[in-house]
Each structure stands twice: as structure tokens, then as C-alpha cells.
């Protein structure tokens, strides 16, 4: 495998932007090569300038691919600091760059799947749900959010995903509880695909120990292509690079205690 380079550095033009409240937004970029190759679970390194002229901030920002069709790559953004703030304030028409599609992604579903997303971690799961549309009716989608400030985002997700189960930490939208509480309540033996903060993933793996779980992990990244070894996670088979050996891992392989 991996005999040819399966990603590229490509110019990307911001073609649509929908702010969704609470520092959240849905962004669409024209980036045909990446859009064509993208598969659910993969991500891009995003650079807000078309050329690497300014060096501050220096590095790209990893962003899950939330959708890819008709030459466009979609991302869901949650502002976390300086880099994501710059992305959030890009004007329509802005010329940027992306490296992608990166990473391994989810392997095609064989059986019933439950998608479990914590906060902005729903992004790659939305793509999975839309991409495997034919089997999507057998894909339940569980989403955990902090509070009702995420209402517009929930509505936006609801427009793309049927069978959406929303739980919120404060009970202001849907049932009260975390994404993990929701998953435990709804679990009926299906395979689980999940993405969210490490604490959430770890608790999901512990609370449903007999489930087959594919978890998409997050690490700080510099290159995104496997060169720097900066993004490794401890696994049963030694340290593995999230950007190239992941970001989707079989939960059994990951050493959650050391993470």
C-alpha cells in the first residue's frame, strides 16, 4: 500500500461561510483535487495564506473533512485560539492552501454503525454519514454538546443527518448528559465510530468495553504527512503517527492510560 503519494498541497478558495454561533462555523473551500480524493475520517492541514509568506502563525491547522463533493471541501470550525480565529475571520473569496486528504480514515462499514461525536468532533462523522448514504439509514448518530449556545450548530447538523440523537451537558437541548452517556444508553451491539476530546474517547472505551470502536484521535501536528513524528500516540504496537497511521485507530490498539 501507499505506493504513490495520495495527497497534495493545493490552493483553496473560500466559497461559502456560515457562522453557527459560539465561535462555530461551517466553511466551504474550492479545492478540487483534495475533494475528489477525500474519504470519511481523513483531514487536511489548513493554511490561511496562499503562499507561505508570513511565518506567524507558522504551522498549518489540522481540520477534519466534514464533507467533500463537486470540487468543494467542507470543514466545521470551532475557534480555539489564534490560528482558528484567523480561519474564522477569512472573507469569502480568500485564497488559502490545504494539504490533503491526509490520514487513513474509517474503513467502509460492514455492519450497523453508531456514530458518536463530542462537540466539534462530529465533523468527520457527518462526512461518514453522508458518504455512506446508502447504508446511512442503519447509522445512528449521537452528538454531545455543552449547552444551548450550540443550537444553530445542532440545527445545521440536523439538516444533513437523519436519526440524530442530541444530548447536552446542561440538558438545555435534547437529553441531559454527555455523548458517552448517550452512547451507553443507546448502544445495542453495533460497531462504534467516534471522534471527540481524548477524555471522552477514553471514557467511551471504558464504559462499553465489548464494543468494536474506531476512534479518531487528535494530536498537535507540524507536518501532517508523517515526517516529524510529533503527533504520535502510544499503541500496543509502539508509538504511531496520528497523521499518517491514523487519525482513525482501532480502540483496542490504543494505550488509553498513557494518552
Amino acid at each position: 500500500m501507499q505506493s504513490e503519494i495520495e495527497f497534495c498541497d493545493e490552493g483553496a478558495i473560500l466559497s461559502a461561510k456560515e457562522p453557527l454561533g459560539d465561535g462555530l462555523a461551517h466553511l466551504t473551500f474550492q479545492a478540487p483535487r483534495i475533494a475528489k480524493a477525500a474519504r470519511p475520517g481523513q483531514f487536511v492541514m489548513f493554511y490561511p495564506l496562499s503562499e507561505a509568506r508570513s511565518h506567524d502563525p507558522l504551522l498549518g491547522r489540522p481540520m477534519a473533512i466534514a464533507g467533500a463533493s463537486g470540487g468543494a471541501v467542507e470543514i466545521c470550525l470551532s475557534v480555539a485560539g489564534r490560528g482558528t480565529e484567523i480561519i474564522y475571520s477569512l472573507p469569502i473569496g480568500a485564497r488559502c492552501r490545504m494539504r490533503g486528504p491526509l490520514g487513513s480514515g474509517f474503513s467502509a462499514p460492514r455492519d450497523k454503525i453508531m456514530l458518536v461525536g463530542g462537540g466539534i468532533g462530529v465533523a468527520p462523522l457527518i462526512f461518514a454519514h453522508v458518504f455512506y448514504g446508502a447504508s446511512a439509514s442503519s447509522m445512528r448518530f449521537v452528538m454531545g454538546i455543552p449547552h444551548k449556545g450550540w443550537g444553530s450548530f445542532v440545527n445545521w447538523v440536523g439538516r444533513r443527518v437523519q436519526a440524530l440523537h442530541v444530548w447536552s451537558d446542561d440538558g438545555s437541548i435534547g437529553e441531559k448528559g454527555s455523548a458517552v452517556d448517550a452512547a451507553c444508553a443507546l448502544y445495542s451491539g453495533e460497531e462504534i465510530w467516534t471522534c471527540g476530546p481524548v477524555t471522552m474517547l477514553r471514557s467511551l472505551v471504558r464504559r462499553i468495553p465489548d464494543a468494536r470502536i474506531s476512534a479518531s484521535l487528535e494530536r498537535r501536528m507540524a507536518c501532517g504527512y508523517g515526517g516529524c513524528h510529533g503527533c504520535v500516540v502510544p499503541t500496543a504496537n509502539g508509538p504511531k503517527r496520528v497523521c499518517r497511521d491514523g487519525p482513525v485507530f482501532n480502540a483496542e490498539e490504543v494505550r488509553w492510560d498513557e494518552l
Partner: protein
Amino acid sequence: MNSERPSLQCRVGGLNLRSPIIAASGTWPHDPSFWRGELTAGLGAICTKGITRNRREGNRGIRLWETPCGLLNSIGLQNSGVEAFISGELPEISSRDVPLIANVAVEDLPSLAEVLALLASVKDQIDAIELNISCPNVDEGGIAWGSNPESTAKAVACARSLWSGPLWVKLTPHACDIVKVATNAQECGADALVVANTWLGMAVDVENEIPVFDRVVAGLSGPAVFPLALRLVWEVASCVSIPVIGCGGVAEARDIVAMLFAGASAVEMGTALFLDLNLPAKITLILKEYMRRHDYASIEEMVGVASHTGGM
């Protein structure tokens, strides 16, 4: 010879390069698909990740931290060890479209001797050895070897006795007397000097009131260090007769020109590749355009120009 003018071809430390831009160690994956075709355009050679006697898992905890125009890393020489490198990785990445420079991290002399003896047995698959006496991210050996002139001499002499091919030595900016370290490396048989590795830095997580890195210190690279590396190249190039390869913060064509003018014969580029993998290809075009405009026919003509013009 390539008749195209200006030409980017250059001969450095026993190697013929089609471009003066070399991918620095620890920034290019050993995955085979990276060693051919499109991605190698613009590169004169590629350095491997640091290789050690035994497999190393690397450091725990956070390994990367962005700084203004720079990057702190604490990778800790994660690699599969020399034997797995030779059997599992080298056959797939050597004799591709671009020369391979094996970066060998010095831990202690007996291990170094073993690593070099093993690499010498596959000499035809390796174009040069880059002796890394400058890794800041390990507890044993590493930067300590390159910090003083005597240990530098020992490591280089050991390597020279076991490796007959091109031998490059990668210095640390933290050498107590870099000129003496450089001249010792030359006297002990180095064919070229790479100036330099990362600078020791540190970061503090102010929310959690702890150092960011488990080992506290980490290596700083990227455009932030460029002027520091340039000064070291200037200092070292003026006191050795072997070629110097400038390394540290190179991210644009004009950085390469500056390195050449200060006395470098080629450059290594690491962190900038993270920003744009097509950078070497893009930069070679701009570099050629610069050479045309300033009437330089070859890279060699540009080496050390700033030193002949006084002032500097």
C-alpha cells in the same frame, strides 16, 4: 553536464547535487512514496531521520510547540534502529530519484561503531553519512558530543575509521567553541559540515503552571532561527576549507542566497517543508531567476561572495 544556465547543480562534500536544497533530518518520512516523483522535485538530496543502534520509541508527552515564527520539538530520536532500517526501510527508499544521506545519531562510541559497521555493509545504498553530534532531545549522548572539541574529534575519528564514503558532520549551535569544534571535525576527516542543528529552548504551559515538555527543554527551528544560523555559517565557513551546509530557518530563495553568500555551499531545509511541500520546487525557480538577474551561472560562484566584498 547540464547545459542549462544558470545551473543549480553543485558538488558538495563528495556528492553531486542537482539542487542546493537538501531535506533536513527528521522532517522527511521513510515511507517509500516520498522518495520518488513529484515530491522530490527541487531537492538535491534527502537526509533520513536520526538512526541509532537500537530502536527508540522517542519522548513521551507533548512533542511539538509552536512559537513566533518557530517550532520547538522534543521528538527524542524515535526510529526503528539500524538493523530494521537496513532490512525494512533502506531497500525501499534508496536509489530512488534522489541521493540518500543517512543521519546517524551519536549515543556512545561502541554503539556508533556498530551502527557504522552495519551501514558500511550496505554502502552502495547510502550516498553519504551525516554524523549527528547535536541532538538536543535525548538524555544520553546527543548534543554533548558536539559541545566540546575533544569529544567531537573522538566521534568523527571513529566514524571516519569505519565509513569510507562521504562523511558530513552536523554541529550544534551550543558548541562552547564552534570554530574549534569545526576545525577538529575537519582534521579528523569530515568531508563537509552541516551548520547547524536546533537551538535549545523551553516552553511553559501557563494555564497548568508546568513546563510543556516532559524533558523541559526542546529544540527550536524554523524562520525564527535563520539569522542565528547564518551567523554561525559565516563564522565556521571562514575558518575551514571543507564545504559548509547551512541549516536553520531556511524558508525562501533569498535565505539560500544569503547562506551561500555567507559561505555555505548548499542548504538544508526542515521546518519550512511542513508549511509547503512544494517549496523546494518553487524556490528553485525563484533562485534561478535571481541568478539570471545577477549574472551568476552556477551555485559555486555565489559561495562566500559576502566575504570577498569586505564590510561583513
